[in-house]
């Protein structure tokens, strides 16, 4: 299809097909809705009618939010091969969309319920002695916020993926994997929703592991591709192992929580925390628990020291990078820390550690992002950096600011990744066009379509993508009045207030680190925009790039809208004036997180950060205006910074460092264990010489002495001979002559009758 449509005539046909696809999408949503109706009818009686503040509540529908993606993935798993791309997409998007509807219903329910948190218990899950973990859903303002983000952004990305994967599976030469992609995507959605809806640490951990698995599966979606045919598989493994380290800490924290509180549900733990006074030992325990939780968060949310997996995770298809590795899964750590705020509130040491880790990560990753050439890697490091902002915020106790940034970041980072995917595919199309349709099936060839050095001059080629990309980039850079400005500013404001006004040195350090990170953020985004969209096209691919189909650009437009106006969720107060709608998110989350601070717009903080951002963009403009002119030319920063730029480009050699201090000793130890301990000692000597030798002697004894000497002649041969002899005797009776049998019968009858007649 794509090959045919390289010519102009077919483009109209293609467009008509797209329109029909959209129609099918709508029909499919209706169909899945119809399927869901019985389920809803089943669940409806469970929803209580009429909350305390009037109006209906739909808490009973909460299991459906997980059920829909599960049903979707089961349908695609079983019938995906036969459904065809259209219906696979319809089912997956329909499932995601219906989950979003449920999330909205939960929002309505909470409003009607007077914002009171609700627990919906579905079933007992684990009941062993003291351990009683129900499978229950926590519905409060915090979890509903997460549900809305996960399902909302998730649905948009699902729709985008319908278009993106259509091209991606063909570009990679295996259209049969189309359905598999959406199975994984729905599975991810289900796991993420388990994570955010669970009302205990264990339920959360189930989702926590589930999203890790999906991440692994999707990073390695093209597992046979990548460097040396194993690059993508290695990237998936790296993500999995790095996450395991975090999971290990998380599990130990969960064990300790149970040991301390005899329960794992949030309500029980935080309720006990509020009642009891902690002993010194208890204080120590809480600190240990929170530090372990922090390690868990560094794994999932890609913070120092476990962040190394996230850039490699870009091996996955771009919608995955957007959904999992930018917008939702990686925010799980922030959600978990926010959820555990009563614990962290009692452990100031851990809080400082969280804040400093976050701030350090924010700056560290931002510097690396400056030196990258891969369009997705820049965004990956930017994600790590922004997650650092959020972690720093929750570490300072500014949970609302952290969540606010989480939400806006989900908008603009999903937007950026998806737009980057649009750019990449535009380049792939351009490459195909340039090299002729004949080379279509041969997979990767020509210049790397993800390398920004191969782009340039796309401004006139991509009429929609350029605008949404620009909006995303400005939102990320924190330019007024886009979403990123408000949320980033709130975090900086918290650091400023706590650091300078309240004089906490750790928070001051956090503030300074984050401010510098914000400067770098604006710089690398400016660099990226200039390298991608401006200057002259540096390759044939860039010269012939074309805009993506509407099924991809429409979600981008929606996300761009959100990235533009997302800041309205939580506007700060201004000079004590009541701005209408200000602090909406703070008040909303305040019902769960307790009374939250309500930031005033501080012109100094906002001015510094915006000023720095503008300066950074100006610098990037000065440096990268029209440069590099060709793909071979070296980066202009290389000339100015020299080895520093090399360091940024090589990610400060962290991978090499880990390789040196962890992987190599580990491999060495493994080889020693395998060769020397297992091979030589255990296998060759102990097993072969000692065990096998002894066993041989013993079995020889058994065979010759016991078996041949006693068992064979006495137990088996003798009875056999005996029965053979008896049989030989009686065989003679069996002559085969009917008359002799009849005679025997006759004689028998006579004898029996005679006995009865005569003897008795």
């Amino acid at each position, binding site marked *: 299809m794509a090959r045919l449509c390289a010519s102009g005539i077919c483009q109209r046909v293609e467009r008509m097909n797209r329109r029909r696809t959209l129609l099918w999408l709508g029909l499919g949503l209706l169909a899945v809705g119809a399927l869901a109706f019985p389920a809803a009818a089943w669940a409806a009686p469970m929803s209580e009618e009429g909350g305390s503040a009037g109006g209906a509540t739909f808490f009973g529908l909460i299991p459906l939010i997980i059920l829909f993606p599960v049903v979707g993935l089961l349908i695609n798993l079983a019938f995906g091969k036969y459904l065809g791309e259209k219906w696979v997409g319809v089912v997956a998007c329909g499932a995601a969309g219906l989950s979003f509807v449920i999330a909205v219903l939960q929002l309505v329910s909470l409003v009607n319920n007077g914002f009171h948190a609700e627990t919906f218990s579905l079933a007992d899950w684990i009941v062993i002695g003291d351990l009683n973990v129900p499978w229950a859903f926590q519905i409060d303002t915090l979890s509903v916020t997460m549900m809305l983000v996960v399902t909302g952004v998730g649905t948009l990305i699902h729709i985008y993926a319908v278009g993106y994967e259509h091209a991606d599976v063909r570009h990679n030469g295996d259209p049969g994997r189309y359905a598999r992609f959406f199975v994984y995507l729905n599975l991810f959605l289900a796991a993420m929703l388990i994570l955010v809806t669970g009302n205990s640490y264990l339920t959360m951990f189930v989702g926590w592991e589930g999203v890790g698995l999906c991440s692994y599966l999707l990073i390695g979606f093209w597992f046979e591709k990548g460097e040396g045919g194993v690059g993508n598989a290695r990237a998936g493994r790296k993500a999995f192992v790095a996450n395991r380290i975090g999971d290990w800490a998380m599990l130990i924290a969960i064990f300790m929580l149970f040991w301390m509180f005899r329960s794992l549900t949030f309500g029980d733990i935080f309720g006990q925390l509020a009642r009891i006074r902690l002993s010194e030992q208890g204080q120590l325990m809480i600190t240990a628990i929170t530090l372990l939780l922090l390690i868990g968060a560094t794994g999932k949310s890609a913070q120092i020291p476990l962040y190394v997996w996230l850039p490699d995770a870009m091996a996955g298809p771009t919608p995955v990078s957007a959904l999992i590795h930018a917008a939702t899964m990686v925010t799980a750590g922030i959600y978990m820390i926010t959820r555990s705020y009563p614990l962290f509130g009692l452990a100031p040491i851990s809080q400082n550690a969280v804040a400093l880790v976050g701030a350090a990560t924010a700056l560290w990753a931002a510097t690396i992002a400056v030196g990258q050439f891969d369009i997705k890697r820049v965004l990956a490091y930017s994600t790590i950096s922004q997650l650092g902002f959020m972690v720093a915020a929750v570490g300072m106790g500014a949970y609302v600011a952290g969540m606010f940034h989480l939400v806006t970041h989900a908008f603009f980072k999903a937007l950026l990744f998806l737009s980057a995917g649009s750019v990449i595919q535009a380049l792939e199309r351009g490459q195909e066009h340039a090299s002729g349709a004949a080379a279509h099936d041969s997979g990767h060839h020509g210049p790397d379509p993800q390398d920004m050095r191969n782009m340039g001059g796309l401004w006139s080629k991509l009429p929609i993508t350029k605008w949404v990309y620009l909006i995303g980039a400005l939102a990320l850079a924190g330019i007024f009045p886009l979403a990123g400005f408000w949320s980033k500013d709130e975090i900086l404001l918290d650091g400023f207030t706590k650091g300078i006004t309240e004089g906490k040195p750790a928070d001051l350090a956090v503030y300074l680190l984050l401010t510098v990170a914000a400067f770098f953020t604006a710089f690398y985004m400016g660099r990226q925009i200039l390298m991608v969209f401006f200057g002259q096209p540096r390759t044939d691919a860039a010269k012939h790039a074309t805009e993506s189909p509407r099924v991809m650009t429409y979600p981008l437009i929606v996300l761009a809208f959100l990235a533009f106006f997302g800041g309205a969720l939580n506007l700060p107060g201004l000079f004590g004036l009541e701005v209408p709608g200000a602090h909406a998110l703070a008040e909303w989350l305040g019902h769960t997180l307790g009374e939250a601070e309500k930031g005033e717009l501080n012109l100094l903080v906002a001015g510094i950060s915006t000023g720095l951002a503008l300066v950074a963009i100006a610098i990037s403009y000065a440096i990268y205006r029209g440069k590099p002119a060709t793909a071979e030319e070296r980066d202009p920063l290389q000339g100015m910074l020299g080895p520093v730029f090399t360091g940024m480009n090589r990610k400060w050699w962290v991978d090499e460092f880990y390789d040196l201090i962890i992987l190599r000793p580990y491999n060495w130890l493994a080889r020693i264990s395998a060769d020397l301990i297992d091979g030589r000692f255990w296998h060759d000597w102990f097993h072969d010489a000692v065990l096998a030798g002894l066993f041989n002697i013993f079995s020889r004894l058994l065979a010759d002495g016991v078996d041949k000497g006693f068992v064979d002649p006495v137990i088996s041969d003798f009875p056999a001979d005996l029965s053979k002899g008896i049989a030989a005797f009686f065989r003679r009776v069996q*002559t*085969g*002559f*009917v*008359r002799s049998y*009849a*005679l025997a019968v*006759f004689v028998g009858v006579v004898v029996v009758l005679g006995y009865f007649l005569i003897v008795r």
Partner: protein
Amino acid sequence: MESTVPTSYYVVLSAILFTLGVTGVLVRRNAIIIFMSVELMLNSANLVFVAFARQFMELSGQVFVFFVMTVAAAEVAVGLALIVTIFRTKKSISVDDINQLKG
């Protein structure tokens, strides 16, 4: 009931017939003859049944005879069919030739 033949006569006759039947089964080789001898034995039993039924004025003995005759007829039908089949394969109906399970 006027002067009639005493029951003992019937019993003796029946015993003679039965003995003839047994002897026939034991000494003859022709399967059809053996069959006929078996019929003889069955009928000697029938005779005794009828005789005692008359003596004790009891109908059940006579009813039994009908059963025996029915079963005998069925048996003959099956038996003759077997004999015909055997003759077709063995070309003989001597029971001494039929001394193998397989054949």
